[in-house]
């Protein structure tokens, strides 16, 4: 127990409520100002960018950031625990006396050592649900237990901060379906996962010709009030907006040669496209990506298997993206999250069941990397939530609030952004401190 406690003190930014070096709002603003000045000097874009990656299904924290010195680790996971080994491919990668990365996360360990990455432990929703849909929903709307909020947290941010001159590629989703994080009033376009050129060619005239709108206009003058006409205009507008956005996007993506190869996976390709948009257009502010399939109830595996493959994909895709961005990483943040963690103890099927506390990765130039954030109290069941799961010590809204405040200078308090919650962005020293 003493080791874990010492570990916690050493590794965690949350020393205690009293001594936590709270970043005052002014300092935060200064940090923001400085980081963007720095950025400009280094040839970095002006607009800060946030990219969220949602690992759907409840990604396992314990086999990702492995508490290898905890005696309970291998005891509770007899078939899926990892350890030191001669073979570098299967050996854990220690980043402190107590934590190690899974070998599949080697690229992330590199980012960690470059001070570009910080894992956040025991983070999640205080709401006890172990239901995927509720937990994802709560996190994406950033409103646990509140079902009257229907819009995603990043859409709410976009809507609250929109201006009349918003850049058309301010927010993007490079996958066919908008994640709930991005759903809401603000029009974010979900980009089809296939080449839309042919469809656009076929329908362009129908949706963009002036005559079409002209007819609608004439009609609305002659009829008293016709929802049909309004409805049709909305449809035509949506179609022409899609054509416009996708055409400009296609131009940006044309002949893009990344600095470094990406894994040829859905995630890799999405990140590659986003890198192209960031480097060539430089106005992207918000993007979100879904990565499905982290619900490993059976045959999760230790050094091999589906979990390892997915972690490899996640790690190398992110690594390529960060390297590809070059100086633009200086004001870009990638936030990796999942709806909850998994049981500390493995189940009867060499897998793990739905748990409570999860993990996040905060990655990017502004992030105060090479430190493990969040309170940690070890795997002793007396310290576990309901004797089985990692507890939630850090509310995910504190992380969201910190990102919005430090990256975009957006005060979540002022906007009552998280209903029924007072987010404390200073609770983690997530961002680099500049005084």
């Amino acid at each position: 127990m003493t080791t874990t406690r010492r570990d916690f003190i050493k590794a965690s930014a949350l020393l205690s409520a009293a001594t936590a070096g709270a970043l005052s709002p002014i300092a935060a603003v200064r940090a923001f100002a400085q980081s963007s000045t720095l950025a400009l000097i280094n040839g970095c874009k002006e607009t800060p960018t946030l990219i969220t990656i949602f690992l759907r299904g409840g990604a396992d924290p314990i086999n990702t950031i492995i508490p290898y010195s905890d005696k309970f680790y291998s005891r509770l996971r007899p078939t899926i625990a990892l350890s030191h080994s001669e073979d570098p491919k299967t050996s854990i990668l220690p980043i402190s006396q107590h934590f190690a990365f899974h070998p599949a996360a080697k690229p992330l360990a590199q980012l960690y050592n470059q001070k570009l990455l910080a894992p956040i432990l025991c983070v999640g929703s205080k709401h006890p649900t172990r239901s995927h849909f509720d937990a994802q929903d709560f996190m994406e709307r950033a409103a646990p237990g509140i079902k009257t909020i229907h819009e995603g947290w990043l859409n709410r941010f976009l809507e609250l901060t929109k201006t009349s001159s918003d850049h058309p590629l301010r927010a993007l989703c490079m996958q066919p379906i908008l994640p709930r994080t991005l759903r809401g009033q603000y029009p974010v376009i979900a980009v089809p996962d296939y080449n839309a050129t042919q469809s656009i060619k076929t329908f362009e005239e129908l949706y963009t010709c002036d005559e079409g709108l002209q007819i609608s206009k004439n009609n609305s003058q002659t009829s008293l009030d016709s929802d049909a006409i309004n409805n049709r205009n909305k449809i035509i507008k949506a179609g022409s907006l899609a054509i416009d956005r996708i055409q400009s996007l296609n131009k940006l993506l044309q002949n893009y040669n990344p600095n470094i190869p990406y894994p040829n996976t859905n995630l890799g390709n999405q990140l590659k496209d986003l890198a192209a948009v960031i480097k060539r257009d430089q106005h992207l502010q918000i993007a979100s990506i879904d990565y499905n399939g982290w619900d490993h109830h059976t045959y999760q595996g230790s050094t091999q298997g589906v979990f390892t493959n997915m972690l490899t994909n996640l790690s190398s895709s992110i690594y390529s993206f960060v390297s590809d961005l070059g100086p633009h990483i200086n004001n870009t943040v990638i936030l990796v999250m999942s709806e909850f963690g998994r049981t500390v103890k493995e189940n009867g099927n060499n897998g793990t069941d739905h748990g409570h506390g999860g993990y996040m990765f905060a990655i990017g130039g502004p992030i105060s990397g090479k430190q493990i954030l969040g309170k940690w109290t070890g795997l002793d069941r007396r310290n576990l939530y309901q004797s089985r799961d990692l507890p939630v010590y850090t509310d995910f809204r504190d992380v969201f609030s910190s990102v919005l405040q430090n990256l975009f200078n957006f005060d979540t308090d002022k906007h009552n952004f998280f209903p029924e919650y007072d987010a404390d962005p200073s609770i983690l020293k997530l961002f680099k401190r500049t005084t």
Partner: protein
Amino acid sequence: MFNQIRYYLCTFVALLTATTLHADLTIGQLSQQDQINYHILSRMTFGPTPQALSSIQKLGAEQWIKNQLNPSQISTANIDTRCKIDFPSLYMPLTDAIRTYNPPYTKASNSPKDQKRRNRLRSEIQSELRNFVIFRAANSERQFEEVILNFWRNHFAIDQTKDNVAFYAPDFENTLRTHAFGRFDQLLLATAKHPAMLFYLDNHISQKPLSPREEKQVAAAERRNAPKAKSLRALERQRGLNENYARELMELHTLGVDNGYTQQDVTDLARALTGWTAAWSTKRAQADPKAVYNFHFNTKVHDSKPKYVLGSRLTGSTRVTEGSNIILKLAHHPNTARFISFKLCQYLVDDQPPEGLVTEIASVFTQSKGNLKKVYKAILFSDDFLRADHYRSKFRTPFEFTIASLRATNASISRYDSLIYAMNSMGQNLYRCPDPTGYYDFAEAWLDPGVMIYRWQFAENLANNRIKGVRTSPIKPNQLANYIDTQTATQILMLKLKPDLSSANYTALILGSPDFQSQ
């Protein structure tokens, strides 16, 4: 009653003919009565077709509506045989379906081979249900039944991918079908007692909470960290109350969100429903060949202390009727009448249904004690149903758009996966709504700009027979008026309808046109 609405019909027609037709237009056009018929069909079917139009012409609108309100009088023999062959799980009693698709576990059940077989069976029963829904929506002569089913399926949304809901969901669909033209209270009670709903909203694990003394016992044993007595382990397993279903029962199924109930009502309703479960789908239950999977009341976990919901103490001759009584009370609550009426009017009339109409329908609901057929009829024969400004005012959901496209192209379907995939791309995952609220029933929820591209792509692929397992026929130019407005859209469309356009691409343009996106 029909005479009353003649006035509105006239206004309606006047509006439709406000713009004159292009002189060169040689395509077919609809008579005034047909335009009215067209509107009726666009709301009471999944898209007008020449056949449907001739049927309503033959019978007259009034009779046609009345027939559709009595679906059991309309024969579906032409599709039933095929349904029974293609979707067998929909024609099995619940227990048989589970035995067939989730067979009892044996010692061999953990082998990878058996796991594979189980996975295949699970995906089979999931597909059968979704395919069944698509097939009947596209082909049933009882179109209004399918349209109304689409409403209740969404109102009582369940997700077939959660836990073992997959095996119960076909029977749930049949339960909705049984009651959709009956009484709302019976419909509600049937869903409340259905294992699919109990599993989906976690009521099956909701148990009476531990008493303070029991809680202390458990906590003390935790601290000792030693092997525990059987009784203590049983206590530990007793996880306590799960409010999920009780909350949704009031919020989504009856009263409406925050509409006349408190957190205390939710908690006490949840306590009243403790013990409402179904035979477990655990391995042990699975291995028991006598296990029954229907509704089951587990007295052991029922909380028998007094409860108060909506201001009065719950009563019942048995512990189960205590629960069913309060469910019936909720079904007959005035807020429920209004909430259900609003949703039905929103579905059948307009995204923002007229206040007066909702009030009128709510009173029909109350006076008829929730007789759903009377409620539908009151909406369909209301002054507002045919009001001109409701013409084409509803944006088609992905499901409605897909089915309408299939009907317009007279599609024959042998595989459904690409259709399901397409609907999912447009934002609607059939029987897998991620949220118990169901999908929203207004245009804003569906009109993401990016989604238009998917609709166009689907239109092109469908018309060009590029969708695996779906064969379509092109729309004939003289039938154009069945699908889009001759007065407006065609003028734009004419720009594109060049002589060298293939009939498939001509069809694609119609399906992807702005007009075809609405009904």
